[in-house]
């Protein structure tokens, strides 16, 4: 691509943000009891693993981690469904009564989050759902906000924010494309 790219965060910066989010999650929920992390495929699922690691470093306990693929719950292709492959949803535990931390990489229109929440509700009735995102770029089209934000990045609609992962699914950097 010939477009302009600005690096907003590097790997170390992302790691610091995830560590802070882990602390905030523990503080808000007073520990790890009943907490589960669910990442939205694909970026959010990798970040959920990162946050879970940090939580176990801080608190010692293991937090259940799941992943949700929202392809089957989308609303942005009425009539025309996407024709790509569907990713796997892996939530090998009940969400009944759990405090779900939903994790995504970039929060934008909010429609992905809406779809993910619909998907989660099909797995039982969680006690609450909190939203953690690495980047909040604004331009919401639904009444949705994040509880934990790595960084707020004001953007224009023409720009694109991407979190890049390496081949072992570790976050490398966040880039803004114009």
């Amino acid at each position, binding site marked *: 691509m010939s477009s302009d790219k600005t690096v907003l965060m590097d790997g170390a910066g992302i790691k610091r943000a995830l560590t802070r989010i882990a602390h905030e999650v523990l503080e808000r929920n007073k520990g790890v009891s009943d907490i589960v992390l669910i990442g939205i495929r694909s970026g959010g699922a990798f970040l959920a693993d990162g946050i879970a690691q940090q939580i176990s470093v801080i608190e010692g306990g293991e937090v259940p981690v799941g992943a949700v*693929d929202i392809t*089957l*719950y989308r609303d942005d292709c009425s009539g*025309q*469904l*996407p*024709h*790509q*492959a*569907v*990713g*796997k*949803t*892996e939530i090998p535990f009940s969400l009944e009564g759990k405090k779900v931390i939903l994790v995504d990489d970039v929060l934008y229109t909010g429609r992905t989050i809406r779809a993910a929440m*619909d*998907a989660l509700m*099909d*797995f*039982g009735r969680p006690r609450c759902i909190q939203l953690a995102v690495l980047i909040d770029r604004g331009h919401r089209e639904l009444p949705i906000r994040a509880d934990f934000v790595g960084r707020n990045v004001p953007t224009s609609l023409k720009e694109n924010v991407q979190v890049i992962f390496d081949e072992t699914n570790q976050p490398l950097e966040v880039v803004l494309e114009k």
Partner: protein
Amino acid sequence: MAEFKHKHIIALRDLSKEDIELLISTAESMREINNRDIKKVPTLRGKTIINLFYEASTRTRTSFEIAGKRLSADTVNITTSSSSATKGETLSDTALNLLAMKPDIIVMRHSVSGSHYFLANKVNCSIINAGDGAHEHPSQGLLDMLTMKDRYGRLDGLKVAIVGDITHSRVARSNIQGLTKLGSSVFLAGPPTMLPPGVEKLGNVTVCSSMNEALQDADVVMMLRIQQERQGKTLMPNAREYSRYFGLNPNNIKLAKPNAIVMHPGPINRGVEMSSSTVDGEQSWILKQVENGVAVRMAMLYHVCGGEMGE
């Protein structure tokens, strides 16, 4: 990323290796829905699916109906014994009448090979073949391949023995088309009257002179039903003789690899093509096939709805 661009799924012959891999991978992802407490996703909400069955079917029709319902589509079943076809309506007229009710997908089973191509030219909705005469049965071929992939993690390099009435078997034809595209080698055995001439030209297909030759070191043994309704009485002397030469039993199953799986598209004639002990034995993956059928059909319904209209 691979995209599925077909409006209809009529034969695996029409699909590329990538198309087939995409359908199998989508089915693998959708399988999880069938194990939830709430077995439903909203994906095909507002879509109407008509299951039009001109031939008897339990598994396939139920499986397509459940698949549609789990994706939130509205499914309607028409079996010809209770429809206007018994009053003499032609396929073409039935289709045009159904079309006036604006379905999004018609899933059809028909006794005439190729009838789906005829129908696809007449209608603007998607057509999925649930079996046409002795031509193809793509959903069965796909679910068979998914089952083999579950067992071995791959299809490339597998030795698959298919035994029985190959000539009249749309299941065999779909499997041969799909498996050879995905790199498996297929070995066929059956009475000479039930082996179609020229079948070895379809790719990596070997016609064996005996059942034992086909079974030797097979990873997968697929037994076919003797289709008494399709072949008449002339092709084999009697069921007992057929069973002796082409039936799977605890002795000849040992020729296959020790952990080979045994498959059958159903319904089974116990004691004819398979002895009861092999149907219920540890190597039998027959019920796994049925389980995979729902996921595969969900993937088919999903992808024909998503494909670019008008290929």
